[in-house]
């Protein structure tokens, strides 16, 4: 089948170009091929490329798709983007927010603050269109290429067939100039919720469909609503069973209406019908322009396993959630980060291939957490029985009167990174507190001197000494461990509270993905060695 766009392209960032591989007599072999150049694929390519690996990204389109998809990018995603380069640019371009308000009819019944404390480089969230987000990642890849990274994005290259073999993967690629073949040591499938790669391997994708339709509209208008997430249950303007209003850059506002299960799609998508709903919400005489609209139904599901031999699934191809919670793209970027350092060690021969099973275990745990939260929110939004509706209405009624019912109001629990728990490869925790920086947790940020702690961690294993000395650099079985010693004067109150608690000193071992691996009250060189061996899947040796 020839190549055809399945959706319009907003930015043609990587137009099709003939590659030498297409003229090779035998299929050219690559260490890493990534199928799909969405947020997940681009983040994985950037991370692996910066670590010195040759990466080919195949995308069947020639750039970023047009349309309203992700807008809310979380603190953790921005921290990852900071390590990879484009974080500051995203922050500058995005609309910063952390507060949400929930209304029923006209009355505010609940509000939340996602980051009610100081001392972090990045805010709880920024809003930025997915198009812009992907563009930032693409530009960072261009920048890395300028510095020698071997990342190649091949637009107009569709993965049509794969053959998963013991030692490699055969990939058949379709281009505007016909088909060619490639071989890869590792294939990362970031080809989205409909994942052709998943289908080619005959793998399942089970879960739940929510019986409701959501009309998503982006409108351009100048308005002075605050930069908060505003959500209505049973809104007074009656444009849907629920509604959401959220600001994006460039005077664009995201509006969502929940419009029911039995609808006439064609009719609802007619511009006049969309405008009628928006008019009712914004009121008479408000000038605006409809930029984009679409109707979605939502699902929560995941693959049983994310690793299948030499094929690794990441992002929407592996798991899908409803957007109330902004857990889709954010978790895809976190998948990419979890996978990148592990694949890096495997490719360099410093860790056994079984390390990649920990990618599966950890990201399945994260996906389950996201699906759990997303399912609960969606169940609250679209009660599936009379009794669920009765409880929902009871919560909304009581929340207006009594504060106890407010935490039960669920219009979306927004993305936070998973604290890996109960999985092998972490520990020991000889410090015992504070809870928030325990092994498995993403290292909390904190101010250090003129910057932030997370700026100083990451990329490789780091041994962090707080009020104690650690070696500047060391190695464990060829794996480098950076040392960072912060003395009494550098450990401010916030850092102390988040990492020391009651303790006078501590040594933290942090993984390349900035998750805490182990911690001790004193430096324990043997403990560090064992912890790193455990973390890279060599625990038994």
């Amino acid at each position, binding site marked *: 089948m020839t190549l055809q766009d399945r959706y319009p392209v907003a930015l043609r960032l990587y137009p099709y170009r003939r590659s030498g591989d297409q003229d090779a007599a035998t299929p050219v072999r690559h260490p890493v091929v990534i199928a799909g150049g969405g947020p997940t694929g681009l983040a994985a390519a950037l991370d692996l490329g910066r670590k010195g690996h040759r990466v080919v990204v195949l995308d069947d389109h020639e750039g970023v798709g047009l349309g309203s998809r992700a807008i809310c990018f979380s603190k953790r995603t921005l921290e990852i983007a900071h390590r990879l380069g484009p974080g500051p640019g995203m922050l500058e371009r995005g609309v910063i927010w952390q507060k949400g308000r929930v209304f029923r009819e006209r009355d505010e019944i609940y509000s939340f603050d996602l980051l009610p404390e100081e001392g972090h480089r990045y805010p709880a969230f920024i809003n930025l269109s997915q198009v812009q987000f992907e563009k930032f990642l693409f530009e960072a890849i261009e920048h890395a290429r300028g510095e020698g990274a071997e990342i190649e994005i091949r637009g107009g290259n569709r993965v049509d067939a794969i053959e998963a073999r013991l030692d490699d993967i055969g990939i058949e690629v379709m281009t505007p100039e016909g088909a060619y073949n490639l071989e890869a040591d590792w294939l990362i499938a970031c080809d989205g919720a409909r994942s052709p790669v998943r289908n080619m391997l005959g793998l399942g994708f089970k879960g739940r469909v929510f019986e409701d339709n959501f009309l998503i509209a982006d409108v351009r208008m100048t308005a002075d609503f605050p930069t908060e997430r505003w959500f209505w249950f049973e809104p007074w303007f009656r444009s849907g069973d629920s509604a959401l209003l959220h600001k994006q850059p460039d005077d664009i506002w995201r509006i969502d209406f929940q419009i029911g299960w039995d609808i006439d799609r064609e009719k609802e998508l007619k511009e006049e019908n969309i405008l009628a709903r928006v008019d009712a919400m914004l009121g008479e005489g408000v000038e605006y322009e409809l930029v984009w609209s679409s109707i979605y139904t939502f699902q929560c599901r995941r693959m049983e396993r994310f690793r299948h031999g030499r094929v690794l699934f990441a992002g929407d191809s592996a798991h899908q959630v409803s957007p109330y919670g902004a857990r889709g793209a954010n978790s895809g970027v976190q998948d990419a980060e979890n996978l990148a350092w592990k694949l890096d060690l495997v490719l360099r021969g410093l860790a056994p291939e079984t390390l990649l099973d920990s990618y599966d275990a950890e990201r399945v745990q994260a996906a389950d957490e996201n699906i759990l939260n997303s399912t*609960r929110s969606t169940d609250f939004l679209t009660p599936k029985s009379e009794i*669920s509706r009765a*409880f929902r209405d009871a*919560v909304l009624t009581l929340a207006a*009167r*009594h504060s*106890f019912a*407010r935490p039960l109001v669920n219009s979306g629990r927004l993305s936070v990174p998973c604290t890996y728990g109960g999985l092998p490869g972490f520990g020991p925790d000889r410090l015992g507190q504070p809870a928030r920086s325990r092994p498995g947790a993403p290292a909390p940020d904190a101010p250090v001197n003129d910057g932030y702690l997370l700026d100083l961690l990451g990329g490789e294993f780091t041994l962090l000494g707080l009020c104690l000395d650690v070696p500047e650099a060391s190695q464990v079985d060829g794996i480098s461990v950076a040392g960072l010693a912060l003395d009494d004067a550098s450990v401010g109150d916030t850092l102390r509270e988040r990492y020391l608690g009651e303790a006078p000193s501590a040594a933290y071992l942090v993984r390349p993905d900035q998750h805490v691996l182990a911690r001790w009250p004193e430096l324990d060189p043997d403990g560090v060695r064992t912890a790193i061996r455990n973390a890279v899947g060599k625990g038994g040796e």
Partner: protein
Amino acid sequence: MTLNLEPNMSDPDGFYEALLKAHEGLSDRESVELNARLVLVLANQIGDPDTLADAIEAAK
């Protein structure tokens, strides 16, 4: 004991999910009956008559 109308559940979302799950697959009548039994169980946990009277008022 006074009636606590401030947030007091350590895992509100988990409780809500468990509550809906308990009702899954029940007929309307069965759901009403489950709720009735649940109210009685929770009332016994509270025990104090003044608090229970206040709870009834708060729910009205």
